[in-house]
């Protein structure tokens, strides 16, 4: 069995299983901690607040955006780029069709892929650079932040370096980082991708019950 076959075969399935089970375990674990019942008579709907909170926090507020526009642009640019690459890159769709789902969907054209990659890289580098050049970020960042950023960066980088799609070694390196990333995910702050809707939603629900404006 070649190295590539291992990293995109058994190791990938193991990593994907750890990723899925770990992430779901953790999200359910959080939900299961539960809350006490709120006895105060509500002024509005908590459920509506949950959804509203989730939506509202996608949009930055003007007064803060003036101060933090660089982070907002970097953050959005990274996340949009990443999801475009993850979901619409032709090799990813092929991989999903052949190994997981059995069906495919339209892929980004090559130029679309590259533009998405530009945004993703620009955003991620900016966010990471800020992590060590801003005293606030230096104080609050820990190893988890840096490992998470670097692993994601390496997954993206190795993926793009393998863009010629002609060397198995490059693809294998990419897949290896993907596997590591998947295994690392449920134990790390990367989990925010699976818990952000809870934290936004819970705050939103509290606000909603109290009839607070978001």
């Amino acid at each position, binding site marked *: 069995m070649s190295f590539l076959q291992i990293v995109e075969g058994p190791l990938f399935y193991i990593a994907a299983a750890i990723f899925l089970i770990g992430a779901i375990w953790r999200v359910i674990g959080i939900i299961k901690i539960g809350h006490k019942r709120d006895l105060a008579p509500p002024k509005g709907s908590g459920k509506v607040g949950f959804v509203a909170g989730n939506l509202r926090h996608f949009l930055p507020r003007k007064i803060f955006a003036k101060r933090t526009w660089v982070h907002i642009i970097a953050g959005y640019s990274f996340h949009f780029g990443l999801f475009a690459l993850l979901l619409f890159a032709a090799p990813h769709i092929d991989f999903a069709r052949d190994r997981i789902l059995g069906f495919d969907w339209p892929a980004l054209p090559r130029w679309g892929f590259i533009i998405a990659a530009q945004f993703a890289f620009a955003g991620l580098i900016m966010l990471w650079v800020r992590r060590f050049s801003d005293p606030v970020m230096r104080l609050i960042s820990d190893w988890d932040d840096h490992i998470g950023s670097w692993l994601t960066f390496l997954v993206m980088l190795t993926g793009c370096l393998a863009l010629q799609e*002609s060397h198995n070694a490059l693809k294998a390196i990419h897949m290896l980082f993907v596997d590591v990333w998947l295994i690392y995910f449920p134990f790390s702050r990367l989990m925010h991708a699976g818990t952000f809707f809870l934290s936004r939603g819970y705050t939103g629900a509290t606000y909603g019950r109290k009839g607070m404006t978001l």
Partner: protein
Amino acid sequence: MARMKFLCDAERCIECNACVTACKNEHEVPWGINRRRVVTLSDGKPGERSISVACMHCSDAPCMAVCPVDCFYQTPDGVVLHNKDLCIGCGYCFFACPFGAPQYPQAGNFGSRGKMDKCTFCAGGPDADHSAEEFKKYGRNRMAEGKLPICAEMCSTKALLAGDGNIVSNIYRERVVGRGFGSGAWGWGRAYPGSVSN
């Protein structure tokens, strides 16, 4: 060992483009790639000439010199071949080649060139002779079958000559003598310096 050469007799080429078509068919090259092309000079004017041109398999091949990954090699027959497994599609061989031989699939897609493709003198590539990979990457290996390039083989006017350089130049010399005037064969001065025959 014989030194393989191409020669196009401009006095005979009738711009039928059959060499181009035969080459495409023989090697099943993808859309958009023509390993050979026919250039017409003074089109529609007195003295019109046509020349079929592809990789000339130069002795001191510029492509070989500039390739950053050193993917070219020359066979003992003087045929310049390249290894597509090494090629990164940078396009430098195209910058250097005097004859515009290197071709790239999906050129123009955000600057990405696929792996370079060019005339192999129907001699395949570094993969095992007659293997499926060799055919897929480089086309048919006629040389290994003891045959000469298809373009010259099927040229109806025998304008395009391919094969051992000495034999090719002898044929040409006879023609020139027969025609009663002399000049250098097209491209030979550049491709095979020091061996121009008259």
